[in-house]
């Protein structure tokens, strides 16, 4: 895979149009790496002028902040803003709604103001502009797909339609779970829950959500967040439905449907 880093471009005096912020999950989690690669495949195919920070990228501080550790968050934010401003970054695209939210809503007051776009919105724009060309009768045509709203895209930032429009462009049959859009049920990972054991209760949140997704009769559960993806993949396995239901990121669905 050919991907430029900011350092390389800066060395040759170049500035990409957009920085792809890969995020920790997208960088290190094996499942999420596939989402990252799918997204890069699309960017390369469309010919988007982008770069990544590579080894210079760091955690945004989101899980630390939500857990209550403001010191750590501020340290991370400071360092990231130094790097981003140092490269004169204007626009950031990210595949993680948590990174998206924190850049869009929480970095500006700290001196880090960028145009921030979530990958589902970018994909929708590229499809609308005709820059992403999809296969006629792609592999998801007529398939029942349900979209799981990420809290940090949906309620946090009111992005409900972009990912759905992308799915509709795949000629898939979009079906909704009972709790969707502003009423969408959390996957259970947010607020740093991803990094600890759940509190005692009747059922795990990701199982509750996965049961709902399974009941929707969908063949594919589309996610737009690497953490939702992990949670729902685990839930579908627990329900023993992993052979009949796929949990895939919107970017993966698009990448698999690109026209040659």
């Amino acid at each position: 895979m050919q991907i430029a880093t900011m350092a390389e471009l800066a060395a040759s005096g170049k500035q990409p149009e957009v920085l792809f912020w890969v995020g920790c999950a997208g960088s290190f989690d094996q499942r999420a790496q596939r989402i990252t690669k799918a997204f890069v495949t699309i960017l390369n195919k469309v010919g988007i002028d982008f770069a990544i920070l590579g080894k210079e990228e760091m955690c945004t501080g989101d899980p630390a902040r939500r857990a209550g550790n403001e010191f750590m968050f501020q340290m991370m934010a400071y360092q990231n803003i130094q790097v981003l401003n140092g490269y004169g970054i204007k626009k950031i695209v990210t595949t993680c709604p948590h990174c998206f939210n924190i850049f869009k809503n929480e970095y500006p007051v700290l001196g880090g103001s960028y145009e921030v776009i979530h990958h589902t919105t970018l994909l929708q724009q590229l499809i609308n502009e005709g820059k992403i060309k999809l296969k006629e009768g792609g592999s998801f045509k007529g398939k029942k797909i349900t979209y799981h709203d990420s809290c940090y895209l949906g309620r946090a930032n009111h992005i409900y339609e972009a990912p759905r429009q992308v799915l509709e462009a795949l000629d898939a049959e979009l079906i909704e779970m009972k709790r969707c859009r502003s009423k969408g049920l959390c996957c259970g990972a947010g607020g740093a829950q991803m990094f600890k054991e759940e509190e005692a209760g009747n059922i795990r949140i990701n199982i509750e959500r996965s049961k709902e997704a399974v009941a929707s009769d969908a063949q594919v559960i589309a996610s737009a967040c690497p953490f939702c993806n992990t949670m729902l993949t685990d839930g579908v396995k627990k329900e023993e439905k992993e052979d009949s239901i796929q949990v895939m990121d919107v970017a993966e669905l698009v990448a698999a449907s690109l026209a040659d």
Partner: protein
Amino acid sequence: MTYLLQFLFIAIFAVAVGLFSKKAKHIWQNIRLGKDEDFSDQPAKRWKNTLLLAFGQKKMFKNPLVALMHFVVYAGFLIINIEMLEIVLDGVLGTHRLFAPYMGGFYSFLINAFECLAVAVIAVCAIFLIRRNILKIKRFLSKDLQGWPRSDANFILIGEIILMCLFLTMNATDTLLQSRGAAGYSEHLTGNFIVSQHLHGIFSGLSDGTLMTIERMAWWIHIVGILAYLNYLPYSKHLHIMLAFPNAYFARLEPQGTMKNMTSIQNEVLYAMQPELAPTDAVAPDKFGARDVMDLSWRNLLDAYSCTECGRCSAACPATTTGKLLSPRKIMMDTRDRLEEVGKNIRTNGSFQDDGKSLLHSYITVEELRACTTCNACVEECPVSISPLEIILELRRSLVMEESNAPQEWNNMFSSIENNFAPWKFSPDDRDAWINS
């Protein structure tokens, strides 16, 4: 006799308004115990929110049927209280139906409208009582409401039904006495009213004297009831009928995903990294996050008083609905209870005396705080713009930064972020390893 009654009325009225003002002042003082936060921006948008969210009850209409019923009670109760102006003036001046002679047909039109609304209010309150007590609606069955909160809700509904019945009884006996030409009533012929005329059958067998007694009793109990209700409000969840309005005005306007910045810590980092940029006059905070109600913003405290304990937040909360201890409604109820306790403490002692308690731990436990996924479902659901999430996050800050109280897994996550710049223990050198994997 009339003078005596006028005097009695004025005395009751003055005491009721005086007591209410005193309690209102306490609530005002309690809210001001919170930390300053500026909400003076975007007044146009704020007025729009007040109009849409409070007057228009926009968020209630997510469930149109319930919203419509709620709107009937709200509008009915509010509009019928226009009649209060006449009742109070009658009481003070010793008159009877003061406005009737001046308004002619419009008077009957108004009272007819009030009577129709009164019937609608009675009907809806009855349905609400059934919803609360007979239908098994989860958010009303919840253990959050055990004891006083559950009775509180029922008292309000029963109270409204009684007040409306008194209003109709008052009109029915009055118009019956008018038709009989009874002294004191026949002077102001209003004619029969749309609903109360059908109650004449109940009273027609009674003598003029008995009717007058019933009419007067209904009038007095109605007005004293309303004054009692006014004084009950500040102790009740029903305070939302007043505070929903400022709460909508002071609604948070930034996207819901935004977490409040801590300038104090931002400055700490600047001191360490770029001292030349750090402000030199910033005062260091005495503590980080919130341990007690005084550490929260006044906005959070206004939220607590505005909460009517409807439980829409908890019904949508992923933690509550999967059986975790956390319930966002309880967070708001706990905050109000603790705030009342702190307010009392201050009024008794002149200033706050340590009572060995705090919102964190004594009211809201660590287990509750830990269960929150920060998904914003509670914030999204609240019809009166309350954020339980903001309180949860402030308490979490206190837990982690003041007490170093975090589960081991979170401590591991913190140290990974610190050392590896990722929440997992991967080498930062491998961050771009996915490119070639």
